[in-house]
């Protein structure tokens, strides 16, 4: 097989030699040549007359992009889309943004520099470079310094270059050929097409199974039925509502309307339907302590701990209060009075009457007559005699 020449390589032993070699090669007018050394040799780029690398521009552009992106992101999130007051600072608080801008600038600039260097300047991955797998490369990556003049150079002429290289007194000269084109069965079109088809079919089936098949309903016999839903529009009735308003005067089950609702001084009252039995009074005490005592006090003196924070609640032992009929007290609890709100929704009818009975007990106890005492005495006396 006819091999194609890549270039001629020469090996040298010392860094001083290679710098002289580089100077002479660039002076001879060669353009496409390269120097290889196991470590960066100082001053080689000047000896080779290399132009400064353009890598810095990639860094600059991406660094500026990073600053702009960071500022834009923070401006958008912090000042436009979701403005939040943090530490009393303005929404666009530039000093607070600078550290982040700096970080993103550095991040983008360094990443772009490294990736740009590896991809654009090192042309990574280039696996079949002619210099790979040569004795020359083994030596220059260990303890030798090498020069390669490529055949692509305009001045390249094998005999002349050989003569030139010999004039530099190298340790050895090597001819370097392009490697034979390698074929990779993995990259054959048939195999690749096969892979693509398999991939498309597999992912298609997976998609269908997970997103469609699993959700298919075998039958929908009772899933959909004609019916009226409350709170939903309906075409059945002329007014378009699914719900009906009850007939005038309808009363809900278990509900008794209170006829004097909203009247401040009703002229007539309900009669107390409950007797002050022990159970009734216990219920009344419990409800009184829960709902009434916070303002009126535990014993109805109007001396609760809330005293002073509101207009003071009146004592339930005033003559006026004692002269209220049961129905009037019931009315006040149900309807409210002055700043006292209605307790109709918290306390049931029965509980309200029980409270009325309990208040009566409290009033009687606070304003007991001596005759009451005698009754008690008689009773205890009886008990004592037993």
């Amino acid at each position: 097989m006819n091999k194609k020449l890549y270039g001629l390589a020469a090996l040298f032993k010392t860094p001083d030699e290679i710098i002289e070699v580089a100077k002479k090669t660039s002076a001879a007018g060669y353009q496409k040549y390269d120097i290889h050394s196991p470590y960066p040799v100082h001053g080689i780029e000047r000896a080779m007359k290399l132009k400064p690398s353009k890598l810095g521009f990639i860094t600059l552009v991406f660094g500026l992009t990073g600053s702009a992106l960071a500022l834009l992101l923070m401006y958008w999130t912090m000042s436009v889309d979701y403005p939040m007051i943090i530490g009393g600072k303005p929404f666009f608080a530039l000093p607070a943004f600078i550290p982040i801008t700096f970080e993103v600038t550095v991040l983008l600039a360094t990443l772009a520099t490294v990736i740009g260097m590896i991809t654009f300047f090192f042309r990574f991955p280039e696996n079949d470079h002619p210099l790979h797998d040569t004795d020359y490369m083994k030596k220059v990556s260990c303890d030798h310094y090498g020069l390669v003049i490529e055949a692509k150079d305009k001045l390249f002429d094998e005999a002349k270059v050989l003569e030139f290289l010999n004039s530099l007194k190298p340790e050895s000269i090597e001819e370097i050929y392009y490697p034979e084109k390698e074929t990779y069965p993995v990259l054959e079109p048939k195999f690749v097409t096969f892979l693509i088809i398999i991939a498309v079919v597999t992912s298609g089936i997976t998609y269908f199974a997970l997103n469609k098949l699993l959700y298919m309903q075998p039958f929908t016999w009772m899933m959909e039925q004609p019916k009226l839903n409350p709170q939903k529009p309906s075409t059945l009735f002329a007014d378009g509502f699914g719900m009906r308003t009850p007939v005038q005067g309808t009363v809900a089950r278990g509900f008794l309307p209170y006829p004097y609702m909203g009247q401040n001084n009703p002229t007539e009252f309900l009669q107390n339907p409950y007797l002050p039995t022990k159970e009734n009074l216990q219920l009344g005490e419990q409800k009184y302590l829960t709902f009434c005592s916070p303002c009126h006090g535990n014993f109805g003196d109007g001396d609760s701990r809330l005293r002073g924070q509101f207009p003071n609640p009146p004592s339930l032992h005033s003559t006026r209060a004692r002269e209220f009929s049961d129905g009037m007290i019931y009315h006040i609890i149900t309807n409210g009075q002055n700043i006292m709100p209605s307790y109709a929704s918290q306390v049931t009818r029965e509980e309200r009457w029980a409270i009325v009975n309990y208040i009566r007990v409290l009033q009687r106890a606070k304003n007991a007559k001596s005759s009451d005492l005698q009754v008690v005495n008689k009773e205890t006396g009886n008990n004592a005699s037993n």
Partner: protein
Amino acid sequence: MHQTDFNYQRKDLPAGFSKFGLIFLVVGLILAAASFFVDQTRAAFNYLVIYMMIVSIALGSLFLIALEYVAGADWSTPFRRIPEFFAGLLPVLFILVIPLLFLNHDLFHWAHEEAVKEDKILQGKAPYLNISFFVIRTLVFIAIWVLFYFILQRNSKKQDTTKDQSLTTKNIRFSAAFIPIFALTITFTAVDWLMSLEPHWFSTIFGVYFFSGTVIAALAAVTLVVVILKEKGYFDPWITDDHLYSFGALLFAFVNFWAYIAFSQFMLIWYADLPEETFWYLTRWEGSWVIFSLLLIVIHFIVPYAMLLSQPAKMDPKRLKFISIWLLFAHLFDLFWLVMPNMQPLKKGYVFSWIDLVFPILGIGIVLTVFNFISKKENLIPVGDPKLKKGINFHL
């Protein structure tokens, strides 16, 4: 490639150094003396700015010398004499500081006894901020600097004739001792002379802030002289592009360092938003001072950053010369910005006065004259230094 032939012939510095130095010194002295009669307080504040500028250049240069020894740097050996000459300003500080010590009443609010009596905060600080301790501190610090200056430069000069390598070892030891002392003294100097102008204010990073400007000033001064002397042939062929590039890179680094420190100081105070800290910045935001504050960012960071960013710019002698002058001005501007708003009549905004222009002239005069005086009959290159050959053959 290697510089094998090395024969240095001592040459006198260009005549311009002494001529301009003397003219500036005489003119500056006359005008400065006149300004003291016109407005003593303003002249005192301006003189403080120039004094701190000279401290920056001199002390920063001594730091650069010590840094070279401690770090074992060899690239800076060929021109080490230049910072040595600049550090020669240190003994002169003994004379320069005298007027300031007498003017303490004009400069420092805490020096007023009647003000301290009514001020609990100042009473608390009085054990540190009182005139006798202040004077002792200042003189002791200068004495320490001068001591290290004499040791380091005497050993360095002795080496020119004796070629004794052990002198380098000695200097390394003294430099290692000097660096922590330098860190402490420069911090206390910044606190004493700059921060205590506003005795109610405090910032723990302030010493570092002054240090960053100091190194910029010293580096810029050294760069300027080296580039000028190289252009006039004094350093050829021993100072190469690689040396110049290192100058540019160092200047660039310290411009960034200054911005980093200045921003760190600002951001913490801005974020915490405590009235006892923010008022210092608010004073510098008052009236026309806001222009100075914004200009400081442009002059001290944005312009030098942009001008030094690219690789060729860092080794272009013309660019370096310009940027060194620019950075010297930037540090002066920074000091002006630190000092002047503390002056009572200028609290509400800057008002121009010709006195502000006089003192830089005096400063240039002092620096040039002293530099010229010290460098007379001295080798520009430490010919006996064992690191010299490596320094001349320095490659990046």
